[in-house]
């Protein structure tokens, strides 16, 4: 009785679509769900679909630009914040605030300050660059906006981790003659590693799901240089009316995420032992 309400919602709106996406990927359905089974045809098409592989490459590029930098910046900000006393709360809030803003506000702000003609960044630099209109700058700027927006989350996890490092460890290290940098390297870094690997895993899964920011900042442009997997899926489904093929794209993303996170957790575990 107690589980009924949640389980009904869960089965209808999560389990059912999750199973349905597997079935749909084997059909030539349109977005209304009309179609018939075509076996593995969608997957065969996918393997030779250059636009799909380009989207995978753009997604991987975005992941490379965000996962480690976002973790490193989060750690750096946490180090800065934890040593503060009275200023701690206001500074922490300043770094965290962007995280609670809607993505469309974040991208609106980014598009405004980076505007080619009237944006304050170009004004300060004395340039007229359309950062999101330039194929080589667009993705790095999408990544930068993402880090600005979400790094507060990582920072909070690192702050919690830093607080859990017992003060005696630092005292013991200081007694042994370790200087500040050595204490950081041999006490803080190893003890914070569980948090670091948690953040890296969360980040990796999260960043593969990139959609909102590119949809709003570039819509995949210029010349498809920021078309990521989910944007490709969105276009195939809702613009090309190919529900079956879009489901195969979705399946491919799930498979990629599973493989990458298994590989990553293996790698991180090995590192922890050594």
């Amino acid at each position, binding site marked *: 009785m107690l589980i009924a309400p949640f389980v009904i919602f869960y089965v209808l709106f999560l389990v059912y679509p999750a199973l349905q996406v597997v079935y749909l990927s084997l059909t030539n359905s349109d977005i209304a769900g009309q179609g018939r089974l075509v076996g593995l045809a969608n997957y065969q098409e996918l393997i030779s679909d250059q636009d799909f592989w380009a989207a995978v490459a753009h997604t991987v590029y975005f992941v490379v630009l965000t996962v480690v930098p976002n973790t490193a910046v989060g750690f750096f900000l946490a180090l800065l914040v934890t040593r503060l006393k009275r200023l701690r709360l206001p500074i922490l809030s300043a*770094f965290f605030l962007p995280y*609670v803003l809607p993505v469309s506000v974040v991208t609106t702000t980014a598009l405004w300050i980076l505007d080619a003609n009237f944006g304050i960044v170009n004004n300060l630099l004395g340039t007229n660059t359309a950062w999101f209109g330039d194929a080589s700058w667009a993705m790095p700027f999408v990544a930068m906006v993402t880090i600005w927006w979400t790094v507060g989350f990582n920072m909070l996890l690192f702050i919690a981790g830093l607080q859990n490092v017992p003060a005696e460890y630092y005292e013991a290290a200081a007694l042994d003659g370790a200087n500040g940098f050595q204490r950081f390297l041999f006490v803080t870094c190893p003890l914070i590693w569980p948090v670091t690997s948690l953040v890296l895993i969360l980040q990796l899964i999260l960043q593969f799901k990139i959609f909102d920011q590119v949809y709003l900042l570039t819509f995949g442009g210029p010349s498809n240089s920021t078309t990521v997997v989910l944007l490709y*899926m969105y276009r195939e489904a809702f613009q090309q009316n190919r529900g079956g093929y879009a489901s195969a794209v979705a399946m491919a993303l799930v498979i990629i995420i599973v493989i990458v996170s298994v590989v990553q957790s293996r790698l991180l575990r090995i590192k922890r032992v050594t």
Partner: protein
Amino acid sequence: MKTEKFSILGLICTVFTVILAIAWLFPVYWMAATSVKSETDTIVNPPILFPWPPNFDAFVYVIQNSPFFRWYLNTVITSVSVTVLCILFSLMCAYALSRLEFRGRQLLYVALLVGFMLPFATMAVPLFMFMTRLNFVNSFQGLIAPQVATPLAVIVFKQFFDEVPRDFRDAALIDGANDFKILFKIYLPLNWSIIWAMSIIIFIGAWNNFFWPLIVTNSTPMLTVPVGMTQVQSAYGVAFAKICATGVLASIPTAAAYLFFQKKVTQGVMAAAGLK
């Protein structure tokens, strides 16, 4: 740790941190500052850093010339319903998972963990088809239902309920209370803090949700603020005060929720990441 001595290095570090924090907030400030300028003032060179007195024309224009108020109402209805339903159902489900024996309990928990890992966006296509069949496209049901079916709160609440001593329930059962009563009279007050924290996290997440409202709504009167604001912006063209005014209006609820309940948000974020 030993008492901090005054040091030049520490001072430099603090000053650097403060400057970095101000720079970090600058884009938010700049959006707010632009929204209270006249359109001509937004594009003058050099830029006006402190617009004074503030000019609210952009806000008046946005509210009068777009269904912003309607979108606000939609988003409030959606995010409040999602929060209330999700928290209530999750509490009940988590209590059952933590305290009751029933067939399929283990299976349900595994299904929740798998669902937690599954990217929502990959289910968008079948979910949209399902919504079409139910006639839920462009409706509150369509906006709300899939957002209620997120397993995060169940998983978090279960962990907290697991730590409540089992004797509490046994004693209450002997006194003749049923499980509904035990949940709402004992488990709920004991875990008030995390329930509150998760409520705020879910509210912020639902208010900010962009992807699902983008998929399930396409008629102007049913849009939510995060989706609707991007539509008016593309209609405005070069009108930065109005564009920024939509951004300020869209940010107020979640920014306020964070500033008022900072500790709760922090607690919720930790719990969501699996750290208590």
